[in-house]
């Protein structure tokens, strides 16, 4: 009985394997128009409508499972895209910073060329801290006495005068901005040459006043105010000549000529300072002039 069962089992297996191999060999060997292919196509014709019906009937289930799959894929995709977005954001931020620095450096080079600041041995510095107080308009830069920076040296950027060095340590310095209460600079109207003093307007953050102008009516709105670089036998100006300070925004009439209030907006955007340069030899032109016979 057992032998019979074993024989039957083995026979069935051998038969099925043989049948499979015969089918395989015959199918593989014949052309596309052969008998087995024709039978397969016929069977396909029979099965196709059933499959199509089943396909339609099962579509909702398929869609449901697909939805789960898509959700999982979407989660992965979202994670990937988020990572990519973060990387791109970092890249954009880096490029923007580099672009801004590039523009600032170009501005510095431009002002060096146009105002002849190279002779004053400019030292480029980066602003890394700003006074949080509204009373003191100061910033800290990353260059100090070891770089040749000294107290009272003028500080400029690509747009114009920023301020002057207030105090110096070995590797850092504090710059007093134009808008600080204690700041004052001898200046002149670029067009008319009227001299005066530029100082911050009290109580108006970011506003400067062009004071002590003898012929104030010679100064008009949109006139450029520049440093005068005053020279005398006893006292020299801290600032070289012809560095832009700002532009006249309005002229207020007072009772007398000296009461006229000339408001000046700083040429440099003092709220956005990144790269500046300290003119470490501000009196270079004076010295050169004195050396000449």
């Amino acid at each position, binding site marked *: 009985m057992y032998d019979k069962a074993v024989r*039957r*089992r083995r026979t*069935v*297996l051998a038969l*099925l*394997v043989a*049948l*499979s*191999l*015969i*089918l*395989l*060999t*015959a*199918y*593989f060997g014949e052309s596309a128009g052969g008998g*087995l292919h024709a039978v*397969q*196509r016929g*069977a*396909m014709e029979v*099965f196709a409508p*059933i*499959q199509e019906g*089943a*396909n339609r009937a*099962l579509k909702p*289930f*398929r869609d449901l*499972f*697909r939805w789960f*799959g898509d959700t*999982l894929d979407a989660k992965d995709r979202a994670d990937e895209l988020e990572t990519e977005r973060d990387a791109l954001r970092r890249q954009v931020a880096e490029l923007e910073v580099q672009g801004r620095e590039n523009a600032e450096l170009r501005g510095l080079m431009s002002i060096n060329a146009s105002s002849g600041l190279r002779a004053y041995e400019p030292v480029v510095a980066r602003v890394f801290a700003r006074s949080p107080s509204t009373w003191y308009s100061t910033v800290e830069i990353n260059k100090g006495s070891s770089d040749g920076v000294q107290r009272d040296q003028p500080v400029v950027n690509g747009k114009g005068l920023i301020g002057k060095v207030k105090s110096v340590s070995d590797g850092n310095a504090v710059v007093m901005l134009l808008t600080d209460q204690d700041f004052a600079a001898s200046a002149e109207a670029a067009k008319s040459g009227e001299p005066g003093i530029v100082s911050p307007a009290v109580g108006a953050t970011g506003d400067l006043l062009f004071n002590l102008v003898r012929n104030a009516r010679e100064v008009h709105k949109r006139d450029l105010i520049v440093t005068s670089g005053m020279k005398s036998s006893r006292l020299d100006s801290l600032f070289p000549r012809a560095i832009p300070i700002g532009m006249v925004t309005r002229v207020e009439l007072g009772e007398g000529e000296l009461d006229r209030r000339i408001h000046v907006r700083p040429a440099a955007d003092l709220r956005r300072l990144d790269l500046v340069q300290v003119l470490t030899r501000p009196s270079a032109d004076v010295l050169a002039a004195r050396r000449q016979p």
Partner: protein
Amino acid sequence: MTWSAAAVGRLVALGLLGGILQLTAISQVTLFGVPADLSPLLVASVGLLAGSVAGATFGFCLGLFVDTALLQTLGVTSFVFTMIGYGAGRVLELRDPAHGLVPVAVGAAATVLAAIGFSLLQFLLGVEAPVSLLLVRSILITIVLNTLLALPVYALTRRVLLPFLPDDPRRRRRRAYTTGGLSPLSRA
């Protein structure tokens, strides 16, 4: 398994429905880019429940159906599924496993065998498919998916073939307790 027209009818229905379900729905639902494959699981389940002859025959027929429906080379799937059905049946006949997780192991083994068998036959037939990491990855994912599906497929197959299967001793015991019979312990 008790052979009868009804049993054969159920096996045919199981094969047809399983095959159509696989071709029209399961194969179109992908997880991690790979679909599950119920066919080897069905064949392995039939073999594990009904024995090697039934398993091999069912495997051959289901393989033939799949090859025909997909216009594939006739005989390839039949050959592989015949071996799977026979192997699963021999596990039943030689070991008579009682552990509940045996269908999972057999299902996983059947999927591995199917994947390797198909690949080997395709190479032997001269189909130029590079053995890439992608292929290995998809085979591995199919094995994992099928392993997860093995138990439900086995349970479903068992439910379909239950009237024609020999009485399971555990089931017989359970029935005896619920119908007021004495447990072997109380008899002792």
